[in-house]
């Protein structure tokens, strides 16, 4: 599978500088780059396919933009040309969004294209935050908030300009997203390995480190023993935070979830939460697969089918779901899971 990394961040936050630096890393030699929602680009010294429409030159190679419509079309075209040998066999794709972009539709498009069997998988979302102006952007621009909220990796840029990162900014970022490791880039310099997914990563690992997502928002680790009171038990993260109007809700469940209940859950989320659901990640203890947990990932109403980890990544075998978005109701989510599992159990008991 080819991981697709989404590089986002508000206007002037240093995305392109970071990208240019990253592409100097030999480890990223075979990387295709798509800039904004429209331009399809192959980059590295082996991968030059200039287009007459537009052409941008970087130190490491060339960027050519073939404006072909929307992102899905661009991705499909890029993968198709790779398959036909018209461009070198790139091993990863980086999408640099525009500074004003809402990241959710971009992630949605990547997942939709991945669903067409193109061999793509959504990798990490990397968000740059300007150490000097980031706080003002977060105060003023909703898109900036969304970009930070959905990140798997946050990169504080222009730290060289401010010396010490402003505590207010760090606090604000932590309020919005405590899951994502916060890295710093000085003059755009940071280690690619810390930011991007490797091309040989297993499917589960490509989901931006589900364990990291799940662990950061529920440090309590408390739960009710499976099967207690003959009801499915469910815990929610004690630290579900509300930054601006972005919610981060962590659900935890000890009892295994029947596969059909998981399917019904996804359908219900798509029905009722799609508009507000920026991202969902989860590790699920599926009753039919007790030794191999399922990893699920969703953006708005698009979900990947579950990928299966080889084994549980830790001793914690509970189902954990993290949802980021607007207009979500933790109570509703809890009760939905409870009702679905109870109904499925009832049907199974009747068979």
């Amino acid at each position: 599978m080819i991981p697709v990394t989404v590089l986002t961040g508000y206007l002037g936050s240093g995305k392109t500088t970071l990208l240019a630096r990253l592409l100097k890393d030999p480890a990223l030699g075979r990387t295709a780059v798509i800039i904004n929602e429209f331009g399809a680009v192959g980059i590295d010294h082996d991968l030059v396919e200039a287009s007459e429409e537009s052409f941008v030159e970087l130190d490491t190679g060339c960027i050519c933009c073939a404006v072909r419509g929307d992102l899905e079309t661009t991705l499909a075209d890029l993968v198709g040309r790779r398959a036909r040998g018209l461009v070198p066999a790139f091993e990863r794709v980086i999408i640099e969004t525009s500074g004003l972009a809402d990241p959710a539709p971009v992630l949605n498009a990547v997942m939709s294209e991945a669903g067409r069997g193109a061999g793509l998988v959504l990798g990490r979302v990397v968000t740059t935050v300007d150490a000097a102006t980031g706080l003002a952007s977060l105060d003023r621009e909703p898109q900036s908030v969304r970009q930070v909220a959905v990140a798997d990796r946050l990169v504080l840029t222009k730290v060289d300009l401010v010396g010490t990162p402003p505590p207010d900014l760090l606090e604000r970022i932590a309020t919005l997203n405590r899951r994502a490791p916060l890295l710093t880039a000085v003059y755009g310099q940071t280690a690619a390995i810390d930011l991007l997914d490797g091309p040989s990563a297993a499917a589960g690992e490509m989901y931006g480190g589900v364990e990291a997502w799940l662990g950061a928002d529920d440090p309590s680790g408390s739960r009710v023993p499976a099967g207690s009171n003959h009801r499915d038990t469910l815990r929610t993260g004690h630290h579900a935070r509300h930054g601006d109007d972005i919610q981060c809700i962590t659900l935890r469940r000890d009892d295994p979830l029947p596969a059909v209940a998981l399917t019904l859950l996804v359908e219900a989320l798509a029905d009722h939460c799609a508009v507000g659901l920026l991202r969902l990640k989860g590790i699920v203890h599926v009753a039919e697969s007790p030794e191999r947990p399922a990893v699920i990932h969703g953006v708005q109403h698009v979900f990947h089918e579950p990928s299966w980890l080889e084994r549980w990544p830790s001793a914690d075998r509970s189902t954990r779901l993290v949802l980021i978005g607007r207009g979500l109701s933790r109570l509703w989510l809890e009760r939905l899971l409870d009702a679905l599992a109870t109904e499925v159990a009832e049907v199974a008991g009747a068979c």
Partner: protein
Amino acid sequence: MSTSGSERTDAAVLNLLRASIAMWGLDATVARLQDGTIAIGHAGGELRIGRAPPALPFRWLVAIEGRQRAASSVTGLLRVVRSTLDPTWRPGRARIATLPPVAP
């Protein structure tokens, strides 16, 4: 089906419907009637939610002003209820993106 199992499901569905009405921001009331059916009262009338007869390939029946709509799961039931209470609402159908098969 065990009685206790169906009772647990009924209780869970009642709780879910109450939470759903609140999340959807609708003005409606949810109550369990003595015969076990769930009644949702709203400005346009009342919905009655009950179990579908065993002979039918559904689990829930929703009576709406003399008409009946069926649902085969809690997820389907929510869809019926919300579309009835809020005619402007359209479900956002899930799109499942496939990955290369990794069998459990």
